């Protein structure tokens, strides 16, 4: 039920994001979702890719600082209030969301979101009890 996310430390200067994107492209690794958090000096790039272990190997070879983290992918109806229905379940159970972002959009009635929790297992329990569809790794790759 958990999905592997790769987080990469990037200096906030021209061409760094481009370098990562190129390396992944050259190695036929497909980006399914991404988010970038940044300060004036540095940023953290978070990626969901189809081959996380391969991506880790490639980026380490080029001396990037990175980590793998377990995150949760959740399916939500692509209608107004869709996101709120998931967040309600979480806030009622007092589960704190560290950060979240959306999957690259496809033409379907469903949208998919990535959530980062401190306690992943507890969060998955809460989501399931709340009737929310938690996507398995295979589902994510099919998106």
């Amino acid at each position, binding site marked *: 039920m958990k999905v592997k996310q790769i987080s990469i430390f990037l200096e906030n200067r021209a061409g760094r994001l481009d370098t990562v994107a190129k390396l992944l492209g050259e190695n036929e690794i497909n980006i399914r979702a991404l988010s970038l958090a940044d300060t004036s000096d540095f940023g953290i790039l978070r990626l969901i890719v189809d081959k996380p272990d391969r991506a880790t190997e490639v980026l380490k070879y080029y001396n990037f600082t*990175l980590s793998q983290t377990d995150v949760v992918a959740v399916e939500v109806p692509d209608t107004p209030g869709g996101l709120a229905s998931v967040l309600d379940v979480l806030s009622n159970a007092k589960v704190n969301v560290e950060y979240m972002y959306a999957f690259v959009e496809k033409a379907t009635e469903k949208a998919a979101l990535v959530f980062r929790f401190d306690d992943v297992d507890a969060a998955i329990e809460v989501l399931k009890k709340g009737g929310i569809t938690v996507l398995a790794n295979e589902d994510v790759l099919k998106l």
Partner: protein
Amino acid sequence: MNALATTSSQIRSPEVECLPAAAMRELQYERLRRQVDIAWKKLPYYRAKMEAAGIAPGDIRCLEDCRLLPLTLKDDLRDTYPYGAFAVPLKEVVRLHASTGTTGKPTVVGYTRGDMENWTEVVARFLVAGGLTDDDIVQIAFGYGLFTGGFGLHYGCERVGATVIPASSGNTEKQLMLMQDLGTTALVCTPTYAVFLGESLQREGLELADLKLRYGFFGGEFWTDAIRAKIESLLGITATDNYGLSEVVGPGVSGECLQQNGLHVSEDHFLFEIVDPETLEPLPDGEVGEVIITPLTKEAIPVIRYRTRDITRIIPGECACGRTTRRMQKVTGRTDDMLIVRGVNIFPSQVEEVLLQFQDTAPHYQLICTRQGAMDQLEVQVEASEKLFSDQMKRMTQLRDELQERLKNALGLKVKLTLVEPGSMVRFQGKAKRVVDQRVF
């Protein structure tokens, strides 16, 4: 140069400052023998060094034999922290000061009444040589505290009989106000701060005619004749350099006369040797090397052959001022990687010590010093290693802020901390350089 200033000044202690060279060497030898005797009897750490080198006090039969004596390193003084290098009971010590250590603990130095008298006198000596008289109103913009600069200059100025304004460091607006309202005629601070004050003066639209400044006495940092020219034109003064380090006394080891051609060493109190920093072999006058200093009259902490790490040379020949004491050139650099930023001594090892509090092996780091306007800035770059890295931004910014705060506390100076990607630092022959000094002196 100010029209009022002349190139000659009083000589405070002609009986020693104008002593013929042979008589000075004789005096130095006699005092060296006494210091070695004290070290042998009262300083276990130094006696152990002498014994390890197979040297006893009786082996020192002439002044040149000083080279047989083991060197004292900054680490020796650190290892004896706080009082292990003291040769007298604390009851006889009337003052303590401290300087930055290469790691967390500072180097503590102490002064007996006799030390205070000698220190005050050597400071007064260079002040008089640089033009100060009892008619002057002198503003001291050195920090007052553990740093020897503030109090050292304060006592020396009082000894000359000048009117002292203990303004201490910082608060530029107030400095300028005091300078104008109280009619300051002489300024004491770091050369960097003198430039900053001069530029602030211009910004405020003050004319030199509004001020009464005549002389400036600057130290605590390396500076060049180009900076001197700038200070002299900005402030309308005659600027002289003075040199010293707390391990041997503080300011007062040497200072320029109005000839502005080298710093006269107070040779009756300090024995100077210039050595090759690699081989530690002595170098003749005129050749550039590292200064080794033996204080000849220190009572509380008699240090023998202190390795200063400062690079300079002895200027051959006699000075036109009439003093016979040898002159050292302005210090041009260091044989270690110590940086001086805004008068504060910074060792890369201090940064390393802070980083080791975060993980077992220190990540790569680099100190980058730049000059923005007249003020020096220190940036510490730290590689975001996997141990430091987190996918959560709040943890990363917390880490950066905490590192920045701990470095500020450890170094006593505000620093900018930047997290960088591995491999992005400037490397030198494949090795990461710990210090990159981009300032132009």
